[in-house]
């Protein structure tokens, strides 16, 4: 107690030195502490999502890329599947297979084209509004709603992938009809639309002024018995309304329309195996068991964690050496003070205790602040860290 009084008085008097020393130690041990906070949560989230989505189907290519695409809606360079593949699963009785089309974004958030079954099979509930029931409607995740400050009745616009190829896809205004409850998953950060809406964005379907009955000579190039040839002045609608909804139509066979993945949301092993067996009969289809791929990803993340910890240990040892230097110089400077304390009746042990307590106090303060800071970082930026780790 006696030593503590002197130690705290000394630390308070030389508060700049104390702050610098504590700061150096905090920096030295912050990265390992943040990782120790974030990594277990990341691991749990990855494993949970993989368990909920045990089997993923997609085009031939990287298995991890396919899993991250289907589970976390990350961009994929793989060629798309035909919608007919999903129809084949349905016809075979695998009703818990859901198609996904993830090629577009609204701002920074992926637009996920799917069927309404996606929500029921994943157990997602709506916080506000209702599920999409019309072309051009969307349901947004809770994070999208929070970050963009949007709600039911607001609108979102899909972002064209390239401004150089405006014929490929064009911005479609999406009407927000529902907001999902938070689920601490990738669904929180996605914009869900009906599969057909993504095909409209992809310009496989569109709505425009009725040309056949139009009398506007600017809209019609040629009329014949075979049909009417529209001019370039006929522009597709960029927003779906109740009035123009009927004009929307698709060209071609839907079975050939693209989807980017199929997910099986069924935890029964037998169904998974049967479904995988069916898929493997088709050479162009890749089947990935998500838990296996996620385990590989976790191994990579563990290596990254180890690397970061090793770098931190290197930086930390330099910090500890500097800390020791400062303490050593402090001991030299304080020799006269310690001699005075001894002359006045202090034991040599008290002076040693004072040094020890000061080192302990600074280290404890540093650990405490680092721990608080790591909690704060994990709390404030866990989603960003999560995305960063997935993007590695």
């Amino acid at each position, binding site marked *: 107690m*006696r030593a503590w*009084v*002197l130690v705290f*008085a*000394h630390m*308070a*008097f*030389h508060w700049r030195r104390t702050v610098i020393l504590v700061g150096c130690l905090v920096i030295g041990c912050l990265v390992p502490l943040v990782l120790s906070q974030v990594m277990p949560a990341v691991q749990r989230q990855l494993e949970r999502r993989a368990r909920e989505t045990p089997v993923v189907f997609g085009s031939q290519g990287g298995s991890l890329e396919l899993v991250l695409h289907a589970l976390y809606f990350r961009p994929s360079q793989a060629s798309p599947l035909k919608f007919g593949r999903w129809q084949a699963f349905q016809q075979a009785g695998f009703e818990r297979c859901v198609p996904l089309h993830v090629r577009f974004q609204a701002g920074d958030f992926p637009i996920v084209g799917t069927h309404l079954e996606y929500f029921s099979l994943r157990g997602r509930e709506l916080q506000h509004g209702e599920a999409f029931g019309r072309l051009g409607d969307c349901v947004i995740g809770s994070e999208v709603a929070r970050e963009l400050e949007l709600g039911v009745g607001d609108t979102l616009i899909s972002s064209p992938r390239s401004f150089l190829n405006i014929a490929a896809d064009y911005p479609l205004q999406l009407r927000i009809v529902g907001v999902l409850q938070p689920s601490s998953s990738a669904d929180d950060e996605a914009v869900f639309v009906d599969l057909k809406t993504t095909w409209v964005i992809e310009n496989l379907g569109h709505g425009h002024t009725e040309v056949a009955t139009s009398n506007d000579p600017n809209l019609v190039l040629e009329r014949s018995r075979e049909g009417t040839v529209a001019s370039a002045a006929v522009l597709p609608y960029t927003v779906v309304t109740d009035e123009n909804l009927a004009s929307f139509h698709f060209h071609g066979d839907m079975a050939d329309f693209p989807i980017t993945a199929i997910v099986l949301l069924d935890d029964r092993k037998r169904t998974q195996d049967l479904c995988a067996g069916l898929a493997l009969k088709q050479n162009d289809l890749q089947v990935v068991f998500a838990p296996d791929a996620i385990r590989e990803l976790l191994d990579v993340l563990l290596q990254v964690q180890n690397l970061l910890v090793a770098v931190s240990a290197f930086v930390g040892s330099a910090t500890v050496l500097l800390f020791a230097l400062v303490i050593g110089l402090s001991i030299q400077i304080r020799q*006269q*003070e310690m001699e*005075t*304390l*001894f*002359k*006045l*009746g*202090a*034991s040599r042990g*008290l002076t040693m205790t004072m040094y020890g307590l000061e080192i302990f106090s600074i280290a404890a303060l540093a650990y405490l602040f680092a721990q608080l800071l790591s909690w704060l970082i994990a709390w404030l930026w866990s989603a960003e860290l999560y995305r960063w780790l997935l993007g590695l």
Partner: protein
Amino acid sequence: MIRIRDLVFRYQMATARMQPEFRLQIPAWDVPDSARVAIVGPSGSGKTTLLHLLAGIMVPQSGQIELGEVRVTELSDAARRDFRAAHVGLVFQRFELIEYLNVAKNILLPYTINRSLRFDDSVRLRLEHLAASVGLTHLLHRPVQRLSQGEQQRVAICRALITQPKWLLADEPTGNLDPENKRRIVDLLHQQAEVSRATLIMVTHDVSLTASFSHTVDFQAWCGRSEEAGQTEVRQ
């Protein structure tokens, strides 16, 4: 009563490159209670060493030192520290205040660093009384760095007196002060020693200050120089 008998002290760390080994030898020296003793003498003659031996900070190779009924030379390290903290007040030339403590905490320092001393209301009253007697009441919570030299030395004297010591040992307490402050500090030491009925032994280079002391020991004249250079022998 301070009694010294057959005291021999030498520094152990002499090397071939240093000056010949310092040696202090005092066959006998008695100082009556409540005496005021000034010790004058050249630097290096052993004045400070003598104070340190009396306070039990250093231990002689042989001989006896008694302060009152206590034979200091026969006490253990811990007992000497406790005895020093409780019964010996020390005033240093450079004040040796603790820069990170305020005036009050500097004065109460012996109670902070030694377990044998108990801090209670009587000590708090003594602090207030001492501070008032030397004009420090309004400065008790001020950092010592913001005090003048005279004020700092008054704090150092209060620190030496807070335990009501029977022996007050002052090692050149006026060394860094101007003549006016020197006189005030010496008067203060006399006054406080008088109040607490303490024996005052003060080392000084300033012969002009010795007039107010009941005894003056001129180390150069009083100590016989033995045949070997660097050896000091005190004769009384």
